[in-house]
């Protein structure tokens, strides 16, 4: 891939007792690409993300390479890594309540975050914060002046995303960001992430166990099973022409809506 942003080469992680947790992961994510990392609980999705972010527990043994813009993240000092996080690689977690300190207003926290990474005045940071909040479709002034508990889950999650995107990262890791949200709020959040990555060419690594979501939003899918990527490829290919037995099992477990049932039987006819 010529426009590769992140390349993971043969990444392995062992627990302290020597148990293999990740078994030689290879992955490439291009600029502006939406890549889905899909698999069941315990398959190693979040562990992969944590390795990229450099937030694994010390006792885990990590081997391999994680090249971000050509630099091996595993060889960076703690300080170099810290500078990268947020500014270059943003992260949004499943538990949106943990994204903000409960007793500080959202706006205050956004200013603090922005000014940690950019040397700008408070006033400029406030404007930047209000702008990204507005872009997420939130009532910017109200959210800016609210405490996290005064907002709904979907609003807090969108505020967390806008805070992450305010730093204009080149890569965004979304770890099950919609799991704690309603279907409709989840869709809003994903729509916004998709819009943002198209506008800023930011790559997105979307960790999810939701197959429908991966089909709908990703360009490429990486299917994880028991610490390994068993299959990867363009989303259409994984959806309709998967090879690996686990992918087959996973894909067949998506319950179809009545309309899709008719559509998929038609697809069956074409494929014969």
């Amino acid at each position, binding site marked *: 891939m010529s426009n590769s942003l992140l390349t993971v080469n043969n990444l392995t992680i062992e627990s302290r007792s020597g148990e293999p947790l990740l078994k030689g992961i290879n992955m490439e994510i291009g600029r502006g690409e939406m890549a889905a990392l899909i698999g069941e609980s315990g398959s190693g999705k979040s562990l992969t993300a944590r390795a990229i972010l450099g937030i694994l527990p010390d006792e885990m043994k990590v081997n391999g390479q994680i090249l971000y813009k050509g630099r091996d993240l595993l060889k960076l000092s703690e300080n170099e890594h810290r500078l990268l996080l947020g500014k270059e690689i943003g992260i949004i977690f499943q538990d949106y309540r943990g994204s903000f300190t409960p007793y500080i207003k959202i706006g205050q926290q956004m200013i603090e975050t922005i000014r940690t990474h950019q040397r700008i005045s408070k006033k400029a940071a406030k404007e930047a914060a209000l702008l990204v909040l507005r872009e997420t479709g939130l009532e910017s002034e109200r959210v800016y002046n609210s405490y996290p508990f005064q907002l709904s889950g979907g609003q807090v999650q969108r505020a967390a995303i806008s805070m992450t995107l305010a730093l204009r990262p080149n890569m965004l890791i979304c770890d099950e960001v919609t799991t704690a949200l309603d279907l409709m709020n989840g869709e809003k959040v994903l729509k916004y992430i998709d819009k943002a990555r198209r506008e800023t060419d930011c790559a997105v690594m979307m960790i999810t*166990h939701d197959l429908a979501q991966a089909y709908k939003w990703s360009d490429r899918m990486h299917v994880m099973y028991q610490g390994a990527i068993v299959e990867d490829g363009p989303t259409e290919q994984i959806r309709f022409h998967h090879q690996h037995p686990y992918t087959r099992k*996973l894909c067949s477990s998506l*319950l179809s809506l009545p309309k*899709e049932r008719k559509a998929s039987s038609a697809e069956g006819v074409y494929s014969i």
Partner: protein
Amino acid sequence: MSILVVDNLSKQYSKNLQALKQLSFSLEQGESLGVVGESGSGKSTLARILIGLESYQEGAITFQESPIAPKKRAPLRAYRKNVQMIFQDAASALNPKLPIWKSLLEPLKNYSEFTPSFIEVDGLSDKDIAEKLLGLVGLDSNLADRYPGELSGGQKQRVNIARAISLEPSLLICDEPTASLDVTVQVQILTLLKELQQQLNITILFISHDIRAVTFLCERIIVLKEGSMVDQFELDDLYKSRRNSYTKALLDAASL
């Protein structure tokens, strides 16, 4: 014949929080009815009222033609034998300190005057009965001696289903029974519920925010929004243009 009739049901938690607003619907014997809605729509409140865990202020609930009192601790012994529930959190529904076979047998011990039809011969030991129950939900009989902590989420939910059907209830209320399970396991649990419903002729009230799961299991669907029922239809009419705009929005969000 309607097995359950809910008429004008309202539930107020506090001055500003009305969880259910004049809800009316009925459930026919042997059917599976899906209740769809977002968080806060009143789905779980409805389930908890129907099982007698919550009181209600207005309206009436009639089960098999007898009224169900609005008070929480009303005498519900006979009712509860006939109405069983499966919760979202499979783990907290099982006592972690009891082996599976003991948890499984609790309902039958409480209703010792009742003999379910799957006990065909006399003189079965408790363990034998527990193993029969495990077989009904596709679990291996050697799980009987295990503890909940040793089972996967899907296995635990199967145990809960086995326990719920042990009294051969006429109505099974399922409140998001698959929401915390992996997708591959979700399908297995839904398939199990579907099979059990057909085999045992149980009526199912299936509560979920997952419209895909609901269309898999249910022939009829009601849609709740902020405590009110905004739509009600047969599965075949899901895509009809007369559907409520909120139903359409839900469907649109779920579609690929």
